[in-house]
């Protein structure tokens, strides 16, 4: 039967041990080979030939040896996992007509009939200290007085954001829709039948043997779940292209009640979508921007507190909305710690790993007397960080708990300011920011961290293969010159 799963810290120790054992062979082999080489070099050519003849190897033996070497080398190369390249990515650029400055938001909230005055003031307070700017966008259906969240309007928003992103991706990469082998779409809060993936297959006339998957309800971290799924599929199918589309459709999710904990999404969620082209074809190595190194997923759903902290429910009046619990920051912190315990051994330099391990073991054995938990210095492992722009509080908490400098969280803060919380696509807007600022260099490592309902914390690590040439065409093209901006703690509106 299967082994009982080890507790987290033991599995870190096991991973370290496995690393050493796997490379155990490397340790003696290299000095041995070097010694042999030195010996061979010492001998003169005549002696070498004499040695060779004395070994009594005839043609058959030589051929067999060469054959074995070739077979083993082939087996080795074939058993290695195929690399997954990110050819390019594109984000939805909301038109100006969709912008919702604070004043517009306030006016709309005051005019719709279902919010009482306390709720209006509460929403404005949230907006003032949210870290959002004046250029974030909401779909038209939500701007009506009262909003009209019909299915048709939701489909219209879906078509607008998704098709814009895919059209831009096609223009950037010369992708032919009929070449797409794998399609993964994630949209948490809107899932019509047929799915959004079928909608894309229909619009772009994709092939009938396409492997399409539509993920829903998986929260703001679903973008990385889609990447994980696309990666698994690419491992199983050589020479393939995978199109991953991440979005959140805002139209059907307007909360029309007065429960405070359920009003937050109205204030924070904004329109956005991203389309990403992945491939495992060797041809793409020449033009791919990034290579996927790792994806690590952590699910804290077994803990009731974590499970309940982002929860869709109905309030006393029957209005449905997403309830964000006050414990979300604590839960997010714990989920992150669990995730980095798994990511750490994969990316940190050996010295950092040993120090982290020692601290874990010490705390395990000695409890609190073992000293404070050692936070590995992730700056040494990554050059860029994309943290899901869930809200100012989330970014502040992460910056504090990981000890990150302001420069590393700048992409997240600026994305939150310019685009708001676009849910699963926010990570791609942040990556676009770093590229637009010409900070991406070949060889740089990028860490994407997504959080979402469940409670899940998912990470992906990319390496840059090709730095995009300035000026970079993307969602920041028209405004990057204004960034970074200072985002004040509070923007007074009332």
């Amino acid at each position, binding site marked *: 039967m299967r082994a009982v799963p080890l507790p987290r810290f033991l599995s870190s120790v096991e991973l370290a041990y496995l690393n050493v054992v796997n490379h155990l062979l490397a340790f003696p082999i290299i000095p041995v080979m070097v010694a042999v080489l030195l*010996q061979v070099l010492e001998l003169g050519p005549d002696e070498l030939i004499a040695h060779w003849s004395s070994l009594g190897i005839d043609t058959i033996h030589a051929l067999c040896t060469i054959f074995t070497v070739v077979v083993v080398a082939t087996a080795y190369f074939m058993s290695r996992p195929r690399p997954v390249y990110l050819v390019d990515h594109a984000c939805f650029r909301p038109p100006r007509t969709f912008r919702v400055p604070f004043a517009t938001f306030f006016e709309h909230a005051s005019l719709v009939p279902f919010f009482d005055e306390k709720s209006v003031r509460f929403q404005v307070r949230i907006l003032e200290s949210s870290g959002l700017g004046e250029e974030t966008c909401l779909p038209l259906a939500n701007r009506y007085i009262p909003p009209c969240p019909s299915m048709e309007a939701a489909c219209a928003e879906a078509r607008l954001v998704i098709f814009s992103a895919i059209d831009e991706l096609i223009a950037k990469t010369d992708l032919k829709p009929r070449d797409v082998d794998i399609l993964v779409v994630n949209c948490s809060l809107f899932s019509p*039948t*047929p799915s959004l*993936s079928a909608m894309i297959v229909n619009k772009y006339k994709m092939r009938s043997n396409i492997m399409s998957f539509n993920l829903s*309800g998986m929260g703001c971290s679903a973008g990385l779940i889609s990447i994980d799924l696309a990666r*698994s599929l690419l491992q199983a199918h050589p020479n393939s292209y995978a199109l991953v589309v991440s979005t959140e459709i805002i139209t059907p999710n307007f909360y029309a009640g007065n429960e405070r904990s359920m009003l937050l999404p109205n204030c924070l969620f904004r329109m956005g979508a991203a389309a990403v082209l992945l491939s495992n074809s060797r041809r793409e190595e020449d033009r791919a921007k990034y290579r996927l190194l790792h994806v690590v997923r*952590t*699910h804290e759903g077994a803990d009731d507190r974590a499970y309940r902290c982002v929860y869709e429910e109905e309030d006393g009046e029957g209005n449905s909305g997403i309830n964000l619990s006050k414990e979300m920051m604590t839960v997010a912190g714990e989920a992150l710690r669990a995730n980095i315990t798994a990511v750490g051994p994969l990316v940190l330099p050996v010295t950092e790993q040993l120090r982290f391990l020692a601290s874990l073991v010490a705390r395990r054995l000695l409890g609190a007397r073992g000293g404070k938990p050692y936070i590995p210095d992730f700056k040494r492992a990554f050059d860029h960080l994309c943290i899901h722009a869930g809200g100012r509080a989330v970014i502040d908490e992460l910056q504090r708990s990981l000890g990150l400098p302001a420069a590393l969280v700048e992409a997240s803060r600026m994305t939150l300011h310019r685009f708001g919380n676009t849910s699963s696509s926010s990570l791609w807007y942040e990556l676009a920011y770093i590229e637009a600022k010409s900070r991406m260099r070949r060889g740089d490592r990028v860490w994407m961290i997504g959080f979402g*309902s469940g409670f899940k914390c998912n990470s992906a690590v990319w390496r840059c293969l090709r730095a995009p040439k300035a000026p970079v065409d993307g969602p920041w093209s028209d405004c990057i010159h204004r960034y970074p901006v200072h985002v004040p703690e509070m923007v007074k509106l009332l």
Partner: protein
Amino acid sequence: MHTVLSVDAMDLLWMIATVLFLYSSLSFLWKAFDCRRNQNCYLFDYVCYKPSDDRKLSTELCSDVIKRNKRLSMPDYKFLLKVVVNSGISEETYGPRSIIEGREESPTLDDCDDEVDDCMYSTLDELFHRTGISPGDVDVLVVNISMFAPAPSLTSRIVNRYKMREDVKTFNLSGMGSSASPIAIDLVNNVFETRKRTLAVVITSESIAPNWYCGTDKSMMLGNCLFRSGGCSFMLTNDPSLKHRAKMRLKCLVRAHSGANDDAYSCAMQNEDTDGRVGFHLSKSLPKVAVRAFTENLQALAPKVLPVGELALYVIRGLRHRLRRSKETKAYAGTAVRVNFKSGVEHFCLHTGGAAVIDAVGSALGLNKYDVEPARMTLHRWGNTSASSLWYVLGYMEAKKRLRRKDRVLMLSFGAGFKCNSCLWEVLRDLEDGGAWEDCIQAYPPQSLVNPFMDKFGWVNEA
């Protein structure tokens, strides 16, 4: 002296180098071999959902529910009742509690949660109990429920309830229609390629409570009449050590998506009627679309499933047919060359979309009454349970002790998109579990499939 010493050391070094080289080459070869060993996908076990008897939907009850919709006129009422009476569905099928209790027009989120929870938890409890696997051992969890996707997802609900591990890979598929079972299997099969000794649990069901249509558009009312509650949880693994306990092995899987065609995409679609009420629209072109998708799927499936002999015969027959057709156009214009799928498949799990669907697919595949009996009986006993219907059909075959070692089972389903997905399984040992059919299999097949309410409601067929 120095030369002698160095020669000995040299030989020793060569020996050590050779040994290490052999060791590493053997370990690479073993890794490659081990990789191939783990590429099989085994069906460990499956459990079909059996709701409690207080949820049975008799024709009488259906009639009451339909009458509650005051917006319907008499012709509409007659039309709906006609559909129910002629559907081939018995008095034993199940509906959601919210509809039976009169709340069909305004189901709460709790109603929807309760409906799926009952299905998921009861089947999973039994699945874990029967297999002896603990929830903490599950590596991959997939849920596909097309028309209900709350946040947190249903997969998170299950992770929370069963306290699954942190590193469990969850996937919540939604909106993928009635053919989602093979899609979920495809997902798991692909994940299996990248991981050894993995255990996956898949839950497939449909949510009816939030999707009751309260309007007057006929094309949307069919869904109300035909869909019934049902679901299935099944466990898949690629662990070769569990092979001796597994029931079936996946041989191949074919997906055909005809969404590129506009008619196909919009023939089964959730949207709003003229009054703004959301319903599931089934268009008149659905049969034509289904045939096209079905043909595409079979074209890809046939070479993988049929023995070489049958394929060769098909080519020969095709050539002959074409020659004859060019000579005598009128006589052979309408006929098509048939492939005998029964040469490669012993049992057929057909999607129970409706009596007409089963008959049409059966005749296209050249099946007889015995072959379509499991699908017909499933439609009779359970109704159209959407994506999980294939598993009830499989359950019938198993309860009737039809599944013997080395038999091949073909699962074929259709769904919104428009998709036609199929997968072929090989039975690994003689199967005998009664499952959800345990208490009623003796009564099947019944003498007559005619609805007992034909006397009472037979007048609907007259006007």
